C-alpha cells in the first residue's frame, strides 16, 4: 500500500532523510520510531505530499505521488501531530468541507459524518465552532475527517499527543479494526508502548537512515536484547543508553 524507494530529503547540506526504502503491505499497522530530529516527521510529510523529496519515489495504493498526486492523495488519510483547523467553522461544517474537497457531495455523506462524529464523541458539540475545542477534541475531529473518504492508507504523526486515556484507547481500537479490514496505517510515535502493543512491524530511523526494520521478535534479535521491552531495544539501536548519565545530571 505504501512503497518508499530510495527516498532522500536534503535541506542545503543537511540530509534529513537518506536513501529510505520500505514497503507497508495491505492490512499492516506499521510503526515508525526514532529520537527527536531523526527524520520521522519529514518522512511523514513527504508521504502526505506536504514536502517534496529531493530524490526517490513514493507510491500510495499503486499511485506514484509525484506523477499522479490527485489519485495518490485520494487514497490517503493524514492526521498531523498539530491539528491546525478552520477555527470559524463548526465541527459539522468542517466535516462537510472535507467531504467537498475530496469531491463528494456533502449531503450524500451525512450518515457517515454523523457516524464518525459519534465515534469520536463529538456529535453533541457538532454545531459548536472549532475555536472553542480543546487540543484533544481538535485531534479527534481531524481523525474523523481523515476517515471520511474511506482511504486505503492512513498516515499518522504522533497520534497520542493531547488525547486522554479514553481517546487513546479509541484510536488504538479504530486503527486495529481499520487494518484488519485490509487497509494500512503508517504511524510515527514516541510512545513505545503504543508501538509495542499495536504495530505489526516497526521501523527505527536514526539521523535520517533506517537502522532497523522488522517485527518485535526480529528487532530483539537484531539488538541482541533478551527482555520483551521495546524501550530497551530502541535505546540500544539508537545509542540512547547514555540517558542514565543525563538523568543523573538533572
Amino acid at each position, binding site marked *: 500500500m505504501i512503497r518508499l524507494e530510495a527516498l532522500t530529503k536534503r535541506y542545503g547540506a543537511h540530509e534529513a532523510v537518506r536513501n529510505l526504502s520500505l514497503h507497508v503491505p495491505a492490512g499492516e499497522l506499521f510503526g515508525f520510531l526514532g529520537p527527536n530530529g531523526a527524520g520521522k516527521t519529514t518522512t511523514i510529510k513527504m508521504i502526505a505530499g506536504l514536502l*517534496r523529496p529531493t530524490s526517490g519515489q513514493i507510491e500510495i495504493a499503486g499511485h506514484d505521488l509525484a506523477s499522479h498526486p490527485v489519485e495518490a492523495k485520494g487514497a490517503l488519510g493524514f492526521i498531523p501531530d498539530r491539528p491546525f483547523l*478552520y477555527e470559524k467553522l463548526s465541527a459539522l461544517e468542517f466535516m462537510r*468541507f*472535507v467531504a467537498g474537497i475530496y*469531491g463528494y457531495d456533502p449531503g450524500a455523506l451525512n450518515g457517515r459524518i454523523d457516524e464518525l462524529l459519534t465515534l469520536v464523541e463529538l456529535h453533541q*458539540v457538532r454545531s459548536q465552532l472549532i475555536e472553542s475545542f480543546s487540543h484533544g477534541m481538535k485531534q479527534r475531529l481531524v481523525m474523523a475527517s481523515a476517515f471520511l473518504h474511506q482511504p486505503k492508507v492512513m498516515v499518522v504523526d504522533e497520534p497520542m499527543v493531547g488525547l486522554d486515556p479514553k481517546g487513546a484507547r479509541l484510536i488504538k481500537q479504530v486503527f486495529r479494526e481499520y487494518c484488519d479490514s485490509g487497509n494500512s496505517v503508517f504511524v510515527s510515535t514516541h510512545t513505545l508502548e503504543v508501538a509495542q502493543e499495536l504495530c505489526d512491524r516497526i521501523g527505527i530511523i536514526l539521523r535520517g537512515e533506517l537502522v532497523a526494520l522488522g517485527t518485535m521478535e526480529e528487532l530483539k534479535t537484531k539488538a541482541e536484547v533478551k527482555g520483551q521491552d521495546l524501550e530497551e531495544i530502541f535505546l540500544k539501536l539508537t545509542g540512547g543508553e547514555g540517558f542514565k548519565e543525563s538523568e543523573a545530571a538533572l
Partner: protein
Amino acid sequence: MTLEFTPASIAALLAPYSRGVRNRQRHATRGDRLRAFLFASVTILFAFFVFAGFYRVLLYIGQFDEFTAPLTHRVLDTVSTFVLTVLLASTVVTALATQYLSDDLSLLVSSPVPLPALYGARLVLTLLQSSWMVVLFSVPVYAAFAATAPSPSLFLAAVALAFPPLVLIATCIGSMVTAALMAAFPARRVKEMLLLLSALFVVLLVFLIRVQQPERLLNPRSIYDVAEFFSTFSTPSSPFLPSAWTTSVLVAGRNGETLPLMPLLLLWSTAAALVVIGCWMARGLYAIGYSRAQESRPARLSSLPFVDRLLENVSRPFEPRFRSLLLKDLRTFLRDTTQWSQLLLLVALVVVYLYNFSVLPSNFTFATFFLQNLFSFLNLGLAGFVLAAVAVRFVFTSVSSEGRAFWILRSSPLTMEKLLWSKFWTALPPLLILSQILTLASNHFLGATLFMTVLSSVTILFVTFGIVGLGVGMGAAFPKFKFENVTQIAGSSGGLLYMIAASSFVAAVLFLESIPVYLILSADFRGLPLTGRALAASVVALSAVVVLNLLAVALPMRWGRSKLDAMEI
C-alpha cells in the same frame, strides 16, 4: 531574583522585544528592506503634506490680528483633543492584545514576576504600539506651529513637556478600561466588541473629516472657513480634561510666554497617579481578566442563521470542491470580526470616493468638452487604483488566509490550480459590482458623455479581471500563512509589490487606451469620421488592452500555482 516596579525590571521584561527588533534588523531580507524603504518614503511624504497644510493655515491665520490668538488656541485644542481621543480608542484595543492575549504571557504569568513589574512592562509595550502613529502625525503638526511661532525653541520645549504626559495619561486610561472590561466580560466578546467599535470610530472620523472638506483650508475664502472647520472637531472644552492642560502649555509656548506651571504639574501628577492606580487595579483585576482570557467558552455559531441557509442554497448549483471552498471562505469571513468589520471601512471609502465627485464645483459639468472627457478618462485610473487598494486587502490575502490549516488542502486531492481558480471566482463578482458602482456613479457626477461612460464601464470590467488575477496569483506567490491578523498579510512586502504591480497594470491599460480615446474624440469634436489609419490604430490599441488583461490574469495565476506546488509546509 525578584523584579519590582523599577525601570531596570521593566527593561528586563521588555528585553525579548528589543532583542527581537535588533535581530530582525540584522537578518532583514531584501523584501524587508524594500518594505521599510517604501514605508519610510510614504511616511515622509505624508508628514510633508501635513506640515505644508498646517503651515499654510497658520500663516493665513496670522494675517488677522484679532483672530490669530483665539484661532491658534482653537487649532491647538483640536489637535490635543484629537490625540487624546484617538489614543484612548487605540489603547483599549492594543491593551487587549499586549496585556491579555499575547502568547508569551503564559510564560510570564506562571513565573514569579510581580504583577506591578509585569503591568509596567506591558504598559510600555501598549504605549509604544498604540501611540507611534499618533506621534508620527503630531511631529509635522507641531513642527508647523514651531516654524510659525515667535520663539520656535520655546514652543518645542512646551511640546516636550506637555505632550508625553498626555500620551501616558491616554495609555493608562485605555489600559484601565480594558482591564475593567476583561474582568467583566468573556475575552472573545470584548475582542469582537472593541474591534467593531474601533472600525466604527475610524469610519466616523473619516466621514467627519471628509464632510468638512479640508481642501477649503488650502484656499480659504474667509477666516470663517478656518474657524468653522476646526470648531467642528472641538468638543466643549473643560478645564478638567488633560487635553486642555496640554493646550494651555502649548498656547503659552506658541505665544512666546512663560510656560504655566499649574497645567504642567497637573499633567505630570495625573500621569504618575494613573500609573500607580493602574498598578493597584492590576493587583486586583489582572488575575481575573487573564484567567477569563484563557477560558474557551462555546463560541456562538453565526448570529444570523438565515444567512447560513442562504449561503447553502445559493451555492448548491456549484460542483462540490468549489462549493466547499466558497462556503468555508464566506463563513470564515462573516464570523471573523477582524475581517467583516473591514467592510465598514470599504463602504466609507466608496462613499468618500463618490462624495468627492458630488462636491465638485457646480459649474464643472459645463466645463469644456475636452476637460470633461479627460477627467472621465482619468477617473478610470483612480477607480482602478481604489480597486487595487480594496483587492490588496480582500483578494491578495485570500490564499494566505487559509493560515496554518493550509495542510488540509495540500494533503487533499485538490490541485492548487483548482484552489486558485476557486479564489478567483469567489473574489470576482463583488469586485465587479464595486468597480461598476464606482465608475458609473462618478461618471454620472462628472456629467460624462455616453461614449466615455460605456468605455469606462467596459474597461473597468476588464481591469477588474486583471486586478483579481494579479491579486490571487501574487497572493499565492507570496503567501504568509503565519499571521495574527489578516491585515498583516496586506501589509507584507508581497502586498506592497502587488500594489506596485496592480497600479502599473492600470497605468498601462490607461496608456494603451488613451490612443483610441484621443483619436475617436478628436474626430468626434471635429465632426469628421475616423480615418482608416486611425481606425486601425484604435483596433490595435484596444486589442492590446484585451491581451494585457488576459496576461494579467493568466501569468500571475500560473506563477502563483507553481509557487504553491513547490512550497513546503
